[in-house]
């Protein structure tokens, strides 16, 4: 079989001052008709850059240094712009990562899809309309007729991504490039979209270049896999080869960092008689977005009758899809939000009604680790101050607080010199360590981690998870671990709570919940995890056990 696309010895130069000279270095591979080629690698490895080069959409400042991209016997790189434009969207099309921003917010769905026909075909207005409708039906949008007339903001993320797919497939291209099309979506939505891509690809025999950093996704849909690191292609092979017998150490490391989708056996401590560190009873929180004149107010029940206990030395997972109320609950608990009703007992004291001042002593006992390692540290403060300011605010003398900060840095395995440096001088993982150190500065009993690892690369994720686990044991912490990645939850939590629409639908020991989910929602959730079969505990793990 002849490849539809051949990348030959492709090097893309980065502008001076970038972190490395080449975004992509001497890359060669082929894409065959009807196959799904997954390109994986950590952030910054050059995945998107390759895709952009194929599309001819490289930023102006970035130049192809040498090499060729052969499509249809023509070199896309030296092809003149006008001819290349004829191919774009027509023979080669692309889907992007962010469905929220990839559609023009000011144009109706119909017009955005119709535009593709307008540019590349001479269909009449009626015909364009008919084709658009067909496409929307194909990608499974509910009520496609109505969907044609709406604006992107009236669609959910998954629906938008479907629109993007419809647009990309409008002219039955030979190649579809998908740059992390599901990263921003919920697991269940992701599963649907992956399924859709695969189905359409089969139907039309399209060759798909699928960029992702999620090995679960790779396991789910790839025929062949390309692994990239720092602009180099380190490995290429069939899915089975790469996933199960990785050759290159980098690939091995990446795969090792992916947690298996099964809860390890844990000793289940009997907590009876123990006093919970944190006890939440019937917590309710409703958001009312004020309506206008005569416009009904929009109410969201983000937490409804949420109750649970959390004991020292255990990790309680809070899982559920986006919008299910996880953050709301965790913020209510730390009193960043005021709950509407319910009780929050911290070490036995009710804190839900305390005011700002009265709360101050309790702040020490419960602390939080935040999601975004970039936004959670004040960029204008030294790491030392970031950690020490909390205790200082509580009345600890500055010198003492700084000494403690130094100790904490050691605890989270950061060099002491970090004290005088600013957050921007650290990597994401290191920042997250600083965030943890800050949370620990008060010697809290309860630690709430809201998506504390979601923004990190897999290998870094593993390190942070390990750190939290160690600290928990060392300091006998009670950890409330909010996470949407079930693989992670399975690995680190002693117990999990599953939330949907602000309600707890299921709660129990991790292993029990994962192996025998009771609620349909939980079942659904678990079934949606990509690559569920791969690396479940029944399969031999060739790469050793992660933490």
């Amino acid at each position, binding site marked *: 079989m002849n490849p539809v696309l051949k990348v030959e010895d492709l090097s893309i130069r980065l502008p001076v001052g970038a972190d490395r000279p080449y975004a992509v270095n001497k890359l060669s591979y082929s894409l065959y008709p009807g196959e799904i080629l997954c390109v994986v690698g950590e952030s910054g490895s050059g995945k998107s850059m390759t895709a952009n080069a194929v599309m001819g959409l490289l930023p102006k*400042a970035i130049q192809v240094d040498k090499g060729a991209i052969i499509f249809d016997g023509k070199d896309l790189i030296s092809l003149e712009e006008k001819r290349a434009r004829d191919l774009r969207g027509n023979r080669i099309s692309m889907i992007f990562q962010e469905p929220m921003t990839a559609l023009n917010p000011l144009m109706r769905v119909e017009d955005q899809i119709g535009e593709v026909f307008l540019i590349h075909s001479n269909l009449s207005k009626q015909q364009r309309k008919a084709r658009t409708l067909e496409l929307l039906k194909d990608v499974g949008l509910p009520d496609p007729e109505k969907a044609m007339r709406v604006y992107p903001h009236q669609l959910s993320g998954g629906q938008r991504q479907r629109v993007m797919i419809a647009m990309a497939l409008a002219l039955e291209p030979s190649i579809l490039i998908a740059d992390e099309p599901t990263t921003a979506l919920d697991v269940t939505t992701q599963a649907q979209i992956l399924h859709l891509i695969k189905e359409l690809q089969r139907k039309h025999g399209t060759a798909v270049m699928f960029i992702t950093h999620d090995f679960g996704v790779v396991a789910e849909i790839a025929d062949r896999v390309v692994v990239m690191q720092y602009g180099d292609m380190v490995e290429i092979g069939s899915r089975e080869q790469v996933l199960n017998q990785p050759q290159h150490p980098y690939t091995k490391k990446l795969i090792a960092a992916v947690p298996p989708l099964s809860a390890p056996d844990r000793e289940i401590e009997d907590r009876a008689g123990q006093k919970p560190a944190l006890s939440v009873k019937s917590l309710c929180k409703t958001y009312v977005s004020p309506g206008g004149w005569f416009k009904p107010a929009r109410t969201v029940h983000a937490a409804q009758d949420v109750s649970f206990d959390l004991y020292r030395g255990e990790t309680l997972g809070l899982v559920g899809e986006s919008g299910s109320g996880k953050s709301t609950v965790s913020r209510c608990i730390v009193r*960043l939000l005021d709950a509407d009703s319910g009780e929050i007992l911290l070490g036995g004291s009710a804190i839900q009604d305390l005011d*700002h001042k009265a709360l101050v002593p309790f702040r020490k006992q419960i602390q939080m680790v935040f999601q975004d390692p970039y936004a959670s540290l*004040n960029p204008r403060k030294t790491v030392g101050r970031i950690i020490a300011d909390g205790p200082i*605010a509580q009345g600890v003398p500055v010198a003492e607080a700084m000494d403690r900060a130094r100790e904490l840095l050691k605890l989270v395995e950061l060099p002491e010199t970090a004290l005088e440096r600013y957050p921007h001088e650290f990597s994401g993982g290191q920042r997250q360590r600083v965030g943890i150190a800050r949370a620990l500065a008060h010697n809290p009993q309860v630690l709430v981690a809201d998506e504390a690892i979601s923004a990190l690369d897999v290998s870094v994720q593993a390190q942070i998870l390990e750190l939290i686990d160690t600290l928990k044991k060392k300091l006998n912490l009670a950890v409330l671990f909010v996470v949407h990645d079930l693989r992670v939850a399975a690995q680190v939590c002693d117990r999990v709570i599953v939330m949907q629409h602000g309600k707890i639908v299921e709660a129990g020991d991790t292993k029990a919940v994962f192996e025998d989910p009771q609620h349909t929602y939980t079942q659904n959730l678990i079934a949606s995890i990509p690559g569920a079969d791969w690396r479940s505990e029944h399969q031999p793990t060739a790469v050793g056990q992660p933490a």
Partner: protein
Amino acid sequence: MSILRKLSTNKVALFGLIVLVFLVLVAIFGPYLYETSPWKMVNRPFLPPMENTDLMLGTDTMGRDVLAGLVYGARISLLVGLISTMIALLIGVPLGATAGYFGGWIDEALMRFTEIFQTVPSFALAIVIVAIFEPSVYSITIAIALVSWPPVARLVRGEFLALRNQEYVLAARLNGQTNRNIILREILPNTLSPIIVMASLMVATAILLESALSFLGLGDPEIMSWGYMIGAARTVIRQAWWLSFFPGVAIAITVLALNLVGEGLNEALNPKLSGKRES
């Protein structure tokens, strides 16, 4: 600092900065080095520039040295610009910060108050204030400040609204820090770059405003300023172009320099615009 370094790589901004530094030096030291009083009638009226080596820029309607006027005027133009901006910041920043941080009815009330000031046409308001409290540097400065603070308040409020739910602010709240501390230590430093950028442009606008007021005859009669010079010269613009030309150019250059620096700062401080990662 890194901002200065970034600025210095931006040639245009650097040029603006050099001009500005020069102007500031003139404003501070000029009057000591150039001792001719700008009010002293030193030669015949309407002496064109370059005709007399002592009076390079010529003389005005009453035989006063134009160059002296420029040198002494630099001080007042810059001072009015700077001080009115400072006052505007002193009003706008706390107001915007309070509104943005606390939100709710405080925000509503403060923003209504701001809206009142924004609804009155600002130039007209400035004119009325100056006319009513009689033209003097003080009334001019205050009038300019009074009409220029609302955008500051809005900007700061916007920043605070965006930042108050930033995770590091939440962390500070969890730490039990007082609101005052959070506003002053956590959020404010992070709003500084847009404020600085805005302030640099406000100084420019204030200088323009001062000159416009002077042009309308609402300048301080005690003090030589560029605006006054143009205002006084406009009636003789046909006979003596240089009388309004030089101060006009001086204003334009100052405002230009401030703008260049402001834009340079904007580029240096605003990662969105720094253009490195562009696609």
